[in-house]
């Protein structure tokens, strides 16, 4: 435990020292992952798939806010989808504009969730996102996470039906459009995952805000169980099939990730909790003070009393 705490301290120091380089590096790797996933899943426009274009986009994203990265990723996604199905791209563009105006008009600064959610879904650990967002964000983060889920399933839909969307010449544009919307709305798995994420965020957020010992740990376990419960219930009600092994392993990995996050951000020692009571003219105060676990990294200094060079010089001088 002590070694882990020391490691955490070193990591924090390292981040504090080199954050000017680390933040662009993190953004660069995130943008690289996002564009790579878009290209491998729905990369239907060859010009946009060229390494030069991708490199320029990633470098631009590394130095600009997450909002710009989301905008560029959205634009690239629309361009790829438009080369398969213009109707699909049109629907997606309208929905993106609506989310941008209605939600991002408030400038919440959590557009990175739009990018992270599909990535976590792709890595088969979708249950980690509600746990992490519930621990770190607020309840309104349900909106970008749900949009991220929607984007993931749209990408999957286009990937699986690219042939049908491109070659179906028997249908006119209105019929194609109607078919696309009907298929999107009848995707029960997408709806279930949206509800699962929303419930997960709600449960984790509400429990971690409670003034009880080990609130964050309880929140992680409860959030994971709540998500499992929603998936099981949906399985019975809407006949949604989620592979059992993937569900359980994904939940376990998600819990581990959430525990790591908890350790890095909120390591406190409940055994040394102190309770205070006092009052002023207007209020009575009941204060609960939980000390943070802080371990400073050992500062090892090696002082050489007799260096080899000096010794040798002294020897020759004699």
């Amino acid at each position: 435990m002590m070694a882990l705490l020391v490691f955490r301290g070193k990591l924090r120091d390292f981040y504090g020292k080199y954050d000017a380089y680390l933040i662009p590096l993190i953004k660069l790797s995130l943008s690289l992952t996002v564009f790579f996933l878009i290209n491998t899943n729905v990369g239907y426009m060859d010009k946009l798939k060229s390494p030069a274009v991708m490199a320029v986009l990633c470098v631009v994203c590394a130095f600009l806010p997450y909002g710009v990265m989301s905008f560029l990723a959205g634009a690239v996604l629309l361009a790829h989808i438009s080369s398969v199905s213009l109707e699909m791209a049109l629907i997606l563009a309208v929905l993106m504009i609506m989310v941008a105006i209605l939600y991002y008009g408030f400038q919440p600064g959590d557009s990175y969730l739009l990018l992270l959610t599909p990535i976590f879904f792709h890595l088969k650990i979708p249950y980690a996102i509600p746990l992490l967002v519930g621990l770190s964000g607020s309840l309104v983060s349900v909106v970008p996470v749900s949009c991220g889920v929607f984007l993931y399933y749209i990408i999957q839909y286009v990937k699986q039906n690219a042939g049908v969307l491109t070659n179906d010449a028997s249908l006119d544009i209105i019929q194609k459009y109607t078919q696309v919307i009907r298929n999107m709305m009848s995707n029960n798995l997408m709806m279930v995952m949206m509800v699962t994420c929303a419930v997960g965020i709600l449960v984790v957020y509400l429990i971690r805000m409670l003034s009880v010992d080990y609130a964050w740990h309880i929140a992680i376990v409860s959030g994971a169980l709540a998500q499992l419960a929603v998936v099981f219930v949906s399985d019975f009600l809407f006949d949604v099939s989620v592979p059992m092994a993937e569900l359980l392993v994904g939940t376990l990995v998600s819990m581990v990730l959430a525990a790591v996050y908890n350790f890095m951000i909120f390591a406190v020692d409940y055994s040394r909790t102190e309770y205070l009571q006092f009052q002023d003219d207007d209020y009575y105060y009941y204060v609960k003070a939980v000390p943070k676990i802080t371990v400073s990294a050992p500062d090892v200094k090696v002082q050489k009393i007799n260096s080899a060079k000096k010794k040798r010089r002294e020897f020759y001088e004699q």
Partner: protein
Amino acid sequence: MLNEEKIKLMTSIGLFEKREGRRIFPVNRFFRSDYIGRYLLKSFLGYTLCWMLGTALVVVYKAEDLLSAFDFSKIRGLAGWYGIGYAVGLGGYLLITCVVYWRRYEYASRGMKVYMAKLKRLEKRYEMQGRTGHGGKRL
């Protein structure tokens, strides 16, 4: 001669400006009603645009049904419901806008008070320096 306390104070003000400046200074240029009113208008326009876009999506989706069973009284009834839906949604969205920007204005006002207090302390330090004629403690 360097004044350590003054440098600390100036650094703290600089950090405060960097961290909170974007959330505080643009807000305090307005009265509360003007600030919230501005965003209410923006929200009204944004919501109306989104409603129109959403309507266009739904109309194209339901185009065949609408054209095949063209009934003026039915369409008039639908338009009524459409109007009610728009008004209720708009009311809810404007309420959320009002709450969000009211809170932001409150936050910015409190932040501005803290900022002004820091500036006053710095000003006093300058006055003291002017009276004593030296920069204070030597580093």
